[in-house]
């Protein structure tokens, strides 16, 4: 009974967490790329990282929170343009290669010591250097804890209710934008492009412009996810690397690509799965077999296997449309 309560508590915590919201946001962006438009972006973590750097650096240099957010989003938009201009006219595979390489470049440059005055090098930028103004915006008490049911967090500082609230509000807003866009004629053209660009071209639609808009939109939502992520952590280049992108794909495929709420549901399920796994291992597996420091690695193995099973047995994800997939090209 006690164990079930632990599961309940930890599962709830996973849902409340701003990290879950950050991943949901980044996965919504990836969904715009991959799910709806068919753009294989393997560098979504790079967009997150750019958002995070743009935001943290501008705020740290005294630019203010609004300017910081704009800088982060603008950086991602420019990044999308730079990646898109040479590749979006080519076959899809080229975008995949370029995005993974470009995301790595961002990560490596971010960690480079020569830029340490700005980026903090490998150590990154500590949370305290850019989060003050965000905390100051909180309508709740600036200090102290708030307890809701079994969950206790600070009102405003650090991993707070305030941050979770903002993170999830942004995720819902992004989902709303996606919903509005993809029920519109714009979304219809995008879905057509996913299937057959030439058919859409023959109907007089500027396919390149549509793909570029999608790449920028998804990238900007990803950058927003990056900002939410670092508000609950610190800016560290290695925390947003290739692994993050693969986790985002897991989240997306789990929830269901090309669905509005799929990325959010996928993010819930993924993080609940991770904590529950830790709980189960901690409860039932003797530490001689597996100790706590091995749990994360074990989690990744299971996630990898789970992703394979998912793609084989339920490729449309939980919310996805099986029919649409089976008629797809």
């Amino acid at each position, binding site marked *: 009974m006690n164990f079930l309560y632990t599961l309940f508590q930890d599962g709830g915590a996973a849902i409340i967490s701003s990290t879950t919201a950050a991943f949901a946001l980044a996965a919504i962006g990836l969904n715009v790329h991959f799910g709806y438009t068919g753009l294989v972006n393997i560098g979504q973590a790079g967009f997150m990282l750019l958002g995070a750097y743009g935001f943290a650096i501008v705020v740290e240099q005294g630019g203010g929170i609004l300017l910081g957010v704009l800088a982060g989003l603008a950086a991602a938009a420019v990044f999308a343009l730079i990646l898109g201009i040479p590749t979006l006219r080519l076959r899809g595979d080229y975008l995949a290669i370029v995005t993974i390489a470009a995301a790595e470049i961002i990560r490596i440059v971010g960690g480079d010591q020569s830029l340490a005055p700005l980026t903090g090098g490998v150590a990154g930028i500590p949370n305290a250097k850019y989060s003050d103004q965000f905390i100051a915006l909180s309508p709740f008490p600036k200090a102290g804890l708030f307890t809701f049911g079994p969950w206790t967090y600070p009102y405003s500082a650090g991993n707070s209710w305030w941050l979770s609230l903002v993170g999830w509000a942004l995720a819902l807003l992004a989902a709303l*934008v996606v919903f*509005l*866009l993809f029920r*519109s*004629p*714009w*979304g*219809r*053209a995008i*879905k*057509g492009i*996913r*299937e*057959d660009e*030439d*058919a*859409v*071209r*023959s*109907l*007089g*639609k*500027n*396919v390149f412009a549509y793909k570029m*808009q999608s790449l920028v*939109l998804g990238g900007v939502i990803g950058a927003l996810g990056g900002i939410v992520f670092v508000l609950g952590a610190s800016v560290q280049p290695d925390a947003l690397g290739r692994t993050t992108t693969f986790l985002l794909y897991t989240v997306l495929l789990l929830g269901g690509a090309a669905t509005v709420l799929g990325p959010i549901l996928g993010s819930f399920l993924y993080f609940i799965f991770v904590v529950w796994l830790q709980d189960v291992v901690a409860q039932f597996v003797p530490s001689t077999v597996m100790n706590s420091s091995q749990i994360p690695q074990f989690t990744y193995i299971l996630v990898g296997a789970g992703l394979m099973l998912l793609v084989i047995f339920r490729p449309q994800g939980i919310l996805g449309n099986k*029919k*649409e*997939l*089976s*008629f*797809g*090209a």
Partner: protein
Amino acid sequence: MPETTDWSSETYDFDRAALRAKLRDVPQEPGSAKPQPILTVDNVVRRFGGMTAVEVEHLEVQRGAITALIGPNGAGKTTFFNLITGFDRPSSAKSRFGGGQGPFATWRFQGESLGATSAFRVARTGMVRTFQLTKALSAMTVMDNMLLGAKDQPGEHMLAALARPLWRKREAEIREKATDLLARFKLDTKAKDYAGSLSGGQRKLLEMARALMSDPAMIMLDEPMAGVNPALTQSLLGHIQDLRDQGTSVLFVEHDMHMVRHISDWVVVMAEGRIVAEGPPEHVMQHQAVVDAYLGSHHDQDLGDDSVLDEDFAAAVADEDAERAEEKA
């Protein structure tokens, strides 16, 4: 061609007999000048390695006519379509950086030069094509396929897409138009089905109906009747004639000589990339160049002979011929 040509409907030959009378005076030779060319093509050459797939020195397509483009397999008809609709670039295109030697490929559609125009812009000028290998968007419904073919939908712009009131009215209009067209193409019962569930012939029909959604000035059909059953072919032929009578020029590729003979006002014959003959359907089949081009499978029979035709269709053609004779009398 003079820039002052009047492209309004006033100069359009709605009366087919008048048009045919005009065409009777056109010399029956490759590249002959037409009284009102809607499309004028010069020096379009396409080489694949050492092989020359298309080499058209001059071609004019009469406005308001149904022009058939025929020729044996591999004659270069589809490649020619691809070239003038912007899906492929002529080897003889003027290089963007200057250099190369002429004569360079040029072509004008309704007085507008299209030499270096991307495919979607070509479609927007009013020249819409279909594909020999159909490009139905399988994971979209038949209705969505149709709606995508419409033009002037403000909701196809990203920002306008967010606000439904901006595009709802236009959406209703094009939906009504799509419903009409689907009914004419006997696809109305399929409107809600995924296009991927259609049969091969139905996809041809869908593609043709979809191309008509934008009210093109000229429609280019690449083997529209391949795989369509004879009864439906009959009604489609009628439909193509209606289109013409309402103001759409038609250029189509077809192997079925009887269909060619039945509906076309003018026939252009291609062989090995070149235009080898032109003329009205009654006469062109007897040209020595045409017989030579087809030599092999058909050389022992008149290419327009009704005896190769299946009976139902022959009867239908005969009926219509009789009707026409009656009308004249």
